[in-house]
C-alpha cells in the first residue's frame, strides 16, 4: 500500500460521486417494480403513486442508510485517531450501547407512541449522557487505555439493561419493536426522521473535523502531541462529543448497527493513506456507501422476510473486523 497524500482530494471526489450513484441506484430497487424512466420522472416531479413511492419511501430509506453509515464511518475514524488504535469504534466507548439503550427505553416505556421523535431523541440523549459519564469518570484526564476500559464496562452495563428490558417486555409486539431497534433497519423511514437526525449528524461531523490537526499530531503519542502545541483536552472533547452526536444520529435513523465504524476507516486508509486527519471525510463517505450498498443487497435477496440491515452489516462487518484485527499493527519504536 503506497501512500499518496496528494491524492486525498481525488479520493474524496470519487467517493462523493459513488455516494450519489449508490443512493440513486437504491431508488430503482423495491418490492414494487417501477420502470427506470418512471423512477427518474417520479423523483423530479408528480404526485402519483409512483412519485410517492420514490420520494417518500425509497429516497428517505436510501438517504437514511447512507446517513447512518456516514455517521458511523466518521465517528469510527475520529475515535481511532484519538485512541491511536485501528480497532476503536463507537462500540468501544459504550456510546453505541447507550444510544441503543435510549431507543429501547423509549419503546419500553411507550414514549414512542406519544411522539415519533421520542425514540430518536432518546437515542441521541443517551449517547450524550454516556459521553458526560465518560467525562465524569475521567475522559480528558486519564489515559486512553483507561478510557477504553471504562467504555467496555459502560457497554456491558447498557447491554445488561437492554437484556433486562427484553426480558420484561410486556408482549410480543413490544419485543418485536425492540428487536427492530437492536438489529437495525432503515425500512419505513420518513424525511422527518432524517430532518431530526441531520442537525446532530452535521454538528458531530463538524466537531470531529475540527479536531483533525490534533489527531494528526497524536500519531506521535500524547506527550509529543502536547509538546508540538496540540490542545489535547480540546481534541479529546471534540472527538468524544462529536462521536456521541454522530452515533446518536445514526441510531436514531437506523437503530444499532455495528462494525461500519471499524471497517470504513480501514478501507479509507487503503485509498487515502493513514494520516488520521485525512481519512475522516473518506471514512464518512465509505461508511455511507457501505450501508447504502448493504441496504440494496438485502432488498434483492429472495427471502420472504427482509433481512435486517444491522444483521447484514454484521454478517459482512464481523469478518471484516477480524481481518482488521489480524492484519493491522501498531507501530512503536
Amino acid at each position: 500500500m503506497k501512500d499518496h497524500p496528494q491524492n486525498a482530494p481525488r479520493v474524496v471526489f470519487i467517493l462523493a460521486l459513488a455516494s450519489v450513484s449508490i443512493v440513486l441506484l437504491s431508488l430503482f430497487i423495491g418490492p414494487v417494480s417501477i420502470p427506470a424512466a418512471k423512477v427518474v420522472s417520479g423523483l423530479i416531479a408528480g404526485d402519483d403513486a409512483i412519485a410517492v413511492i420514490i420520494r417518500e419511501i425509497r429516497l428517505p430509506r436510501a438517504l437514511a442508510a447512507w446517513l447512518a453509515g456516514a455517521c458511523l464511518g466518521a465517528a469510527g475514524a475520529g475515535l481511532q485517531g484519538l485512541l491511536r488504535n485501528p480497532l476503536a469504534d463507537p462500540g468501544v466507548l459504550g456510546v453505541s450501547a447507550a444510544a441503543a439503550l435510549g431507543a429501547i427505553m423509549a419503546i419500553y416505556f411507550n414514549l414512542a407512541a406519544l411522539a415519533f421523535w421520542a425514540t430518536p431523541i432518546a437515542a441521541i440523549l443517551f449517547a450524550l449522557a454516556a459521553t458526560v459519564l465518560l467525562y465524569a469518570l475521567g475522559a480528558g484526564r486519564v489515559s486512553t487505555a483507561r478510557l477504553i476500559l471504562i467504555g467496555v464496562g459502560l457497554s456491558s452495563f447498557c447491554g445488561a439493561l437492554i437484556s433486562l428490558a427484553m426480558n420484561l417486555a410486556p408482549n410480543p409486539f413490544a419485543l418485536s419493536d425492540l428487536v427492530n431497534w437492536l438489529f437495525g433497519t432503515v425500512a419505513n423511514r420518513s424525511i422527518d426522521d432524517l430532518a431530526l437526525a441531520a442537525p446532530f449528524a452535521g454538528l458531530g461531523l463538524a466537531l470531529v473535523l475540527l479536531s483533525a490537526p490534533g489527531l494528526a499530531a497524536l500519531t506521535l503519542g500524547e506527550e509529543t502531541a502536547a509538546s508540538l502545541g496540540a490542545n489535547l483536552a480540546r481534541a479529546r472533547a471534540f472527538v468524544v462529543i462529536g462521536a456521541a452526536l454522530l452515533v446518536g444520529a445514526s441510531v436514531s435513523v437506523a437503530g444499532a448497527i455495528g462494525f461500519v465504524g471499524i471497517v470504513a476507516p480501514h478501507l479509507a486508509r487503503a485509498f487515502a493513506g493513514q494520516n488520521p486527519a485525512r481519512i475522516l471525510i473518506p471514512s464518512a463517505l465509505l461508511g455511507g456507501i457501505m450501508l447504502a450498498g448493504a441496504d440494496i443487497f438485502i432488498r434483492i435477496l429472495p427471502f420472504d422476510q427482509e433481512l435486517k440491515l444491522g444483521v447484514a452489516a454484521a454478517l459482512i462487518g464481523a469478518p471484516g473486523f477480524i481481518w482488521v484485527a489480524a492484519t493491522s499493527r501498531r507501530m512503536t519504536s
Partner: protein
Amino acid sequence: MTALLSLENIACRIDGAAILEDASLNAGAGEFIGLVGPNGAGKSTLLRVAAGLQKPTTGVCRIDGAPAMTLSPPERARRLSWLPQAREVAWAMTAREIVALGRFAWGAAQRENAEDAAAVTQALQEAGAAAFADRLAHTLSGGELARVHLARLLAGRTPIILADEPVAALDPAHQLSVMKLLRAKADEGRSVIAALHELPLAARYCTRMIILHKGRIAADGAPADVVTPAVLRDVFDVNANIDLVSDVLRIHLDPLG
C-alpha cells in the same frame, strides 16, 4: 543576557517519590548542554519539566524570562521542541508527513505554507533523512526512523531544543553525525539540552555538561571541569582514567573494585 531557558529550584515528586530536588539551571544561546547521570537520576523528568509536560511540585520554569505556565501550548511549541525517549508512530505515515508535524504550532497541519515546506526539507536534509522522505514509517529501519524523529525535532527551528537520548540505538557513525548536528544547532545560536549516556561523545561535543545524581545537580560546567575521576566514581560507580589529548577528553572506564 537572559537565558533562553531557566529552571529555578525545581523539585518534582511523583507518587511520593522525589525525582528532582532543587534543580536549577540557565541555558543560554549557543550552549549544547549534555545532561548525564545514571539511570533514574531524573534526566528525562528534568527535560519533561522544561518542555512543560510535567508540572514541577515546586519551582519555576521560564522561557525567554516568562514563566512557562503563562504560555499557550502553541506559543511554547514555537520556542521549544522536545524529542522523547519513546518514539511512537501510531500510523504508517510518510517520513515527510511525520517531519511536517514539527511545524504543527505554525498551523502546518491545516495549511502548509512555503516556510513550513522549506523548514521540513531542510530538516530532512540535515538529519540525513531526505533519501527516504517519501517512504512509510513502518518500512524504515530503527536508525532511519531515529533520523526522521530528529528531523521532526529540527523542523520547528525553535530557539530551544530538548532531546532525550538522541543517539541511543544508533550506530557509531550516526551517533557522531547526530552529535555534530546538535552542536551545529547550538553554534547557530540555539540552546540545546540532550540527555546522554555516552560520556565520551558528550565530553567531545557538548559545550557544557550537567551531571544529575539522585535528582540533584552534582556538577555543572565545561566538560573538562565536570568529567573528573572523582565525579565519575561518586556518581556512576566507575573508575575512570581521563587524559586531555589535543582538546579532546579521552575517557577510559573500569568497574569499581
